[in-house]
């Protein structure tokens, strides 16, 4: 994936592979600018082109090859087989239409149902996402609703056609912790009920720990480590993952003890080093790291890491 007026520009996402199984939640974590949103959105070809260009790679959903699809074909897949929940519930809803109109639109684009049936589906969906008094909500405009309600409406829109795959880009970042817990609970329930796969993008390792089955850590456009959630938290292998996990203050962190930090900062997409992008910030860096980026390799069952000098297992 590159950005620029023509193909061949700044490479934002570089050689990543991942898979989401039915009924499973994959978490993508990384800091801002690491390319996690771009990766997820281009995986379903939702990135506008130009400025973005898919330089090479394969994207598929079940038997469908998304890579070769036309816009018209994609439009039939988006919303029906793939639902998306964007980060900001404020800007993802159209302020000039009622909630009811927007939910009906999401449904009628893909299924032609008689009015009464469509209405029943919309109301049922609102009920499922925990919106109380759904009838009266249908007539309201987004600005009349709180942040938590708007996020529920967005989830309802994404799920109304019962997609196989849900992509949720920081779905709880704009919300308070108590609401976050409610929304994650809701997504968990719907995942089990509908058997869909979820790809969740987040920078919150707490959310990953509680919500995901597998997790992929991104740094500067690449996946540097991927593993089942328990394994990653127990035995992180990449120095970046280790640093990230160590640097978060937790309730158990004693007051005043200096937090371990990862010095320096993430390089911009345009001036990433030729070797491992984490090299300049890494204590274990060697000549090999500076020469070429390490490939993502299997290190034991289901645990992949892209590092020439991974951490020792304890």
């Amino acid at each position: 994936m590159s950005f620029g007026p023509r193909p061949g520009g700044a490479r934002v996402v570089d050689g990543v592979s991942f898979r989401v199984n039915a009924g499973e939640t994959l978490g993508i974590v990384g800091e801002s600018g690491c390319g996690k949103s771009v990766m997820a959105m281009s995986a379903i070809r939702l990135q506008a082109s130009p400025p973005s260009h898919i330089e090479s790679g394969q994207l598929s959903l079940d038997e469908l090859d998304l890579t070769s699809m036309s816009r018209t074909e994609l439009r039939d897949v988006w919303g029906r087989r793939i639902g998306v929940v964007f980060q900001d519930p404020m800007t993802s809803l159209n302020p000039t239409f009622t909630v009811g109109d927007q939910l009906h639109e999401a449904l009628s684009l893909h299924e032609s149902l008689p009015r009464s049936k469509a209405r029943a589906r919309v109301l049922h969906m609102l009920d499922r996402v925990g919106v109380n008094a759904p009838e009266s909500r249908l007539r309201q405009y987004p600005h009349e609703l709180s942040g938590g309600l708007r996020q529920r409406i967005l989830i309802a829109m994404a799920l109304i056609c019962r997609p196989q795959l849900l992509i949720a880009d920081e779905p709880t970042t704009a919300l308070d912790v108590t609401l976050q817990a409610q929304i994650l609970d809701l997504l968990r329930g719907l995942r089990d009920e509908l058997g869909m796969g979820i790809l969740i993008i987040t920078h919150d390792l707490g959310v990953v720990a509680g919500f995901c089955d597998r997790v992929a850590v991104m740094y500067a456009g690449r996946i540097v480590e991927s593993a089942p959630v328990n394994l990653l938290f127990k035995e992180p292998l990449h120095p970046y993952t280790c640093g990230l996990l160590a640097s978060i203050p937790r309730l158990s962190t004693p007051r005043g003890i200096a937090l371990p930090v990862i010095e320096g900062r993430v390089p911009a997409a345009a001036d990433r080093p030729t070797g491992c992008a984490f090299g300049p910030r890494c204590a274990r860096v060697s000549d090999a790291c500076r020469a070429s980026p390490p490939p993502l390799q299997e290190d034991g069952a289901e645990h992949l890491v892209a590092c020439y000098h991974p951490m020792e297992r304890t």
Partner: protein
Amino acid sequence: MTAPLLDVIELSKSFRLRDGRQLQAVDRVSFSLRKGQTLGVVGESGCGKSTLGRVILRLIEPSNGSVRFMGHDVTLLPPPLLREVRKHMQVIFQDPQAALDPRMTVGRLIEEPLVIHRIGSVAERQSEVARLLETVGMSAESAARYPHEFSGGQRQRICIARALALKPQLIVADEPVSALDVSVQSQVLNLLTDLQRKNDLSYLFISHNLAVVKYVSDAVAVMYLGRVVEMGEASQVFETPKHPYTQALLDAIPDPEPAKQRVAASVVPLSGELPSPDKLPSGCRFHTRCLQCMDRCRVDAPQPVQVGTANNPHWVECHLWN
């Protein structure tokens, strides 16, 4: 025991809405903060924690109550005196992007407080700017550059350098790390802790992130709809929370440890949302979401109860402890 640096007594702030109703953003809040100590203020968005910080600095005029700081009642000071006292109380905001004028160089931004208070000659101010930049871990050459040339974490360091320029005693830090990336957050938190130790600073640390607050604070106040519902030593409040709201907040934080979460997944999340502060519930304002709500909670507002010891006060405002 030394006298407190900051004493907030029954401080209230209400705003008049367009339809004439009153919105009580901060409701009779009292606490004191000693030199070199940190008080953390936690709560969900809209609970009044930022308003509280601003009223203490008198960036917003309070409706009632008083703020005693270094022996003065800040709420009564006439403008020239207020300006003198303000030197000693500074603020760091959440969004360093918005807090820095994009058309001023970093040097001018940091120098500005010194210029306003007519401190030092031009040369003295320049060397002070260089010293401040080094204090926050940046090179002195940064002074000639503009804010947009820096990352979020570095911009927050610039804001901290500016807040330190007048050698304040108190810094109100309103969500100072919330807009930063995880790996940068810990850098800025370490810097704040370091500066506190070196300069004997006091912080009023406002944040919605409980783990961060626990990490930096000596004492903590939990706010709900304008009221402090629980307050005490940080480790006590977090380890033996008394108020059902504090308990719910703690339960809701996703712990970055999968094993703990599997157990915690059985915990019932707090249902419902924060009621609008212009329509406060009757009685205890938390009763609409409280799992342990009793009849009297609906009608009768609880008074603060001391559940700690004389040396180690711990206040909670809940009928369960009456």
